[in-house]
Every structure is written in C-alpha cells, then in structure tokens.
C-alpha cells in the first residue's frame, strides 16, 4: 500500500454564504500525477487554495504525510495561475525563480550562490536559461508559465500543486511542461493539477478527481474516467454532446 501524501477531511469553503466547496474528503496517494477536473465555478482552484491555506475554509482539515499542513509547508510547492500576478513588476526571470528558495531560507536571510545555482538549474530544466535576465513582461505567456514552473521546481518539494499550468500556452510549452510533470512523478513526487482539457486527461494523468462543489469521484484514471462520472460532474453526457 502506498503512503498517503495528502489527506483532506470535511473541507468546506463558502464565499458570502454560498458554498464553493462542500464537505470534501480526499486522499491522494504518494507518487501520482492527478488532474482535478470540473466545470467553471466547480471550486477547482479554490480547493487547491484552501489546501494551501491561501483561503480560510469554514470547516475541515488538511494533512500532508499525516501531519498538519502548517508543519509540512516545506514539502509543498505551488504554481499559481499565470494571471494572478502583475507581469509588469520590475524584476527578471531569474529573480522570480529565486523566490522559490525564500521559503527554505526563512525570514531575513538572503539568497546566496547556492540558491542562485539551484535557480539557474531550474531555469535550464524548463528551457528558459537563455532568458534568465529578461524582464518578465517581455516573456511570452508560455515562457511566463515556464518561469512559474521553475520557481516551484527550485523549492525541491515532495508535493506540487499547479493551477491550470496549460492555460493559454502553445503546444510546445504544453509538451515541455507535461514532460517535466511526468519526470517529477518518476522521481516519486506527487503532482496535483487543475486541468481543463478533458481530452488529454487519459494521456497525461494517472489519477483524477471529479469536482463540482462536491467531490464526485477520485481514483485511477483507468478505473473512473468514464461517461458516468463525466455526466455526474458536468451535467451533460460529455461524449454525446461533443459528437453532436
């Protein structure tokens, strides 16, 4: 039996009385590459943010490797949605990646040569080394996404949360990113991705969670990625609707 990487119990989040996530129980085994799928407004991003403590849930708890999340932060890395920051901020690609080392450094201590080396390696891994000194507003959308990925890689975490890393990137970047994610899985890391493209789920992921305010289903893609769950999640028979 594999170790449980993430355990979520009774997680409930509401914005102004309206539940966004309702009583979510979720266990994710170590070493899976998991997609979270569901319609717009299903609470996919909210689920990640609530797990990471960015949003305060009204109920529920999260544990990472059987300890409360607050004690295990260093095991967790996060790739936010690309649109969540202002890319006109005066800084360079390398600088953004270096931010990934800040958590390990803690308060006040500045990054040094070691951190810089790790950041350059992460940039190399995502194919962005030639752009290390580029002002971030002068990067394309796909390049910005790679920089964000590199920032998470440099954290050298065990669990990676990614909020729509494939949004608005071209095919080359998508392939580059998914290859890195698969590499992470090979190295025994757990990767959770908010994902929109149902077509690619079986190809990219081995684990999937269907979400629509409530958790519909979670498990191996080959067992549960079927019409029944898609219909329950999206309210329409997805395959029939596409083929019409």
């Amino acid at each position, binding site marked *: 039996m594999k170790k449980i990487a993430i355990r979520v119990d009774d997680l409930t989040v509401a914005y102004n009385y309206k539940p966004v996530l309702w009583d979510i129980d979720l266990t994710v085994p170590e070493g899976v590459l998991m997609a979270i799928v569901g319609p717009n407004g299903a609470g996919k991003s909210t689920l990640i943010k609530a797990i990471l403590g960015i949003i305060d849930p009204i109920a529920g708890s999260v544990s990472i490797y059987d300890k409360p999340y607050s004690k295990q932060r260093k095991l*967790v890395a996060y790739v936010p949605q690309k649109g969540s920051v202002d890319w006109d901020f005066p800084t360079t690609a390398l600088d953004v990646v270096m931010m990934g080392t800040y958590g390990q450094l803690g308060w006040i201590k500045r990054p040094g040569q070691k951190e810089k080396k790790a950041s350059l390696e992460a940039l190399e891994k995502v194919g962005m080394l030639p752009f290390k000194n580029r002002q971030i507003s002068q990067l394309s959308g796909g390049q910005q996404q790679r920089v964000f990925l590199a920032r998470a890689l440099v954290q050298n975490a065990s669990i990676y949360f990614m909020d729509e890393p494939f949004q608005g990137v071209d095919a080359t970047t998508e392939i580059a990113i998914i290859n890195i994610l698969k590499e992470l899985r090979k190295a025994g890391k757990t990767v959770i991705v908010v994902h929109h493209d149902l077509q690619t789920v079986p190809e990219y992921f081995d684990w999937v969670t269907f979400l629509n305010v409530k958790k519909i289903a979670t498990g191996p893609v080959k067992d549960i990625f079927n019409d029944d769950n898609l219909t329950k999640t999206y309210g329409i028979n997805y395959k029939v609707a596409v083929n019409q």
Partner: protein
Amino acid sequence: MEIKEYFSLVFSDYTLRTITLGTAILGAICGMLGSFAVLRKQSLLGDAISHAALPGIALAFIITGTKDTNLLLIGALVSGLIGTFWIRGMITKTHLKSDTALGLILSLFFGFGMLLLTYIQKQPNANQAGLDKYLFGQAATLIEKDVTLMAIVTGICLVVLLLFWKEFKILLFDADYTKTLGFNTRFIDILITFFIVLAIVLGLQTVGVVLMSAMLLAPAAAARQWTNKLSVMIVLAAIFGAFSGVFGTAISASQNNLSTGPVIVLVAAVFVLFSFIFSPGRGILFKQIRFWQNRRDLKLQKTLQFMFDIAKTHEDISHPHAIKILNNFQGFTRGSLKKMEEKNWVEVKGQKWSLTQDGYSAAKNLYTQE
C-alpha cells in the same frame, strides 16, 4: 532672492539649510515607500491616509491645547492608522470595492477634520492660528527638531527595508505564493502599510493633507520608467523625491515665498512628465521612434516580398525587371528602393531592378521566426 542666491545661502543660512534638508529627506522617504504603494496598486491609499490624518491633528490640538508638532503628528498618525484599518476592514468584510472604501474614508475623515478646524477657529484661543497650514503645508515652519525626527524615521525605515527586502519584494509580486512559503504575509503587509502611514504623517507639515499623495506617487511613477529592477527603482524614486524637495524649496523661497508644498509637487510632476516622454525603454518618444522604424522596415519588407514573388518565377533570380511594375501599394518609393540597394538586396541599373542573392535569401527568411 534669485535661485542662484538661494543655493549659495543654503550652506550658510541656518533656516534655509534646515528647511532644505527637511524637504530632501521627506522626498527621499516618500519616494522609497511610494514605490511600494505604486507596485501594490494602492496608489490611492496614500491619498486616503493623508486626508484621514486631518481630524487627528485637530483633535490633538483640542485635547492638548498646544501646537507642538510632535503631539499633533501623533494625533495624525493615530487617525491615519484608524482610517487605514477601516478601509481594509471595509474591503474584506463587505462587498465594497477598494476604490469605494478609499473614497468613503477619504471624504468622511476630511470632512470631519474640516469641521473640527472651523470649530477651533471659532474658539477664543489666540493659539489657534496656523493649524490650517496642515492643509497645504508650510515648509518654512520646519525646525531642526522636525528634521531630526524625519531623519530618524527615515533611518529606521531604511534598516527595516534592508532587513525585510526579500520579504517585501516577494509580497509585492505574489502575495498568495508568499503565504504558501510559510511567511506571515499579514505581518509584512502591516509593516509596509505602517511605514507608508508614517511617511505621510511626517510630510503633512511640509506638503499638507491635500497634496501629500503626490509626494508618494510622483517620484515612484517617474522612477518606474527608467528601470526594470526593483532596487534601482526604489533608489531612483528616493533621489527624484529628494530633488523635488530641494528644487521645490529653492523655487518657493526665491519667488516671493510661493507656497512650498504645491511647488514641490509641481517639481515632482516635471520629473514624471520628463520620464514619461524621454525614458528609453518605456517613454513615449522612443516608443514612437521605434514605431516609425518598424513601419519603415515593414514597408521595405513588403516590397522585398513582392520582388521575391516575381523573381522566384524565373530561373535566374537576378533577372532584371522594370521599376515601373513596382508601385506604392507594395510600399515602394524611390527612397525605399535606394535603401534596399544600400542593404545590398537589389541592384538597380537604369530603369531596371534585379534581386541579389542576399535579397533573395533575406526574403526567403522574412517570415520564418528564429
């Protein structure tokens, strides 16, 4: 007094030196902290805070009955902080957007402050005159004690900035991510906001409630134009702020004591205007020049493409063709043909042109990106 005379007096005249030093320090600290406000898109927060400080000044006077600057500024600090926390509370606890919350607090506090000021003026207290200097500021009332206070606060602010540089930077860029790294973002946030409020309160005596936000924003907005590095931006903003202070004081002192606050703000505005036009990376002028250059290059490329399309139908790509077949619709002018000749793309003989090997390969690679 001429400006020249002013600068010769600055080093010898005690009063002038104090005032100049004061406005310079004030400009520097405001520029520094203003950079944070601008990058956090909280530009209007400064305006709200400075207006919110007014009732604090009036209340401090009513309670103590003295016009001791430090006491009044403590009153300003307290009411400025109250205003700030109310704004934050309104944004997080209600559906109101931040601009609404800022506008509400700004006018509410300012209105209350003005009410108190008029009430004070009606009192038979000879001491009351001069409180209205906090509306538009009066640098001439700066004394050594005030300047020392400014210098101490600026020093503390610098130390904090250097200590928490990394934390400030990451919070400004990506607050959610900062939280996931385990940093207490609320603490960092409060620290930044507290120093912004402090800088504003320090500036009230010199620049005044109404114009204070310009001292925060103008140097930062100007500095942003010149650099893509946060540290450079903050240093530049401090320098712009300090120079605005000095030049503003100089102009106001040499021109029949024009009100200092407005003059300082106008000088800062000149920095902004200059930066918007002349900065090489983001300025309007160079953007326009680049636009013209691009358009010219595109015209040449359009002609080249047309020539390429003709040339490739021939066995010999350098087969000569009549100039007459080119027209303006393909971006052709006599001038552009000459430029193409200079680039060694074409050879012109009499009334005929022919594509060179260079021109042929240039055209071929025109639309294949690297």
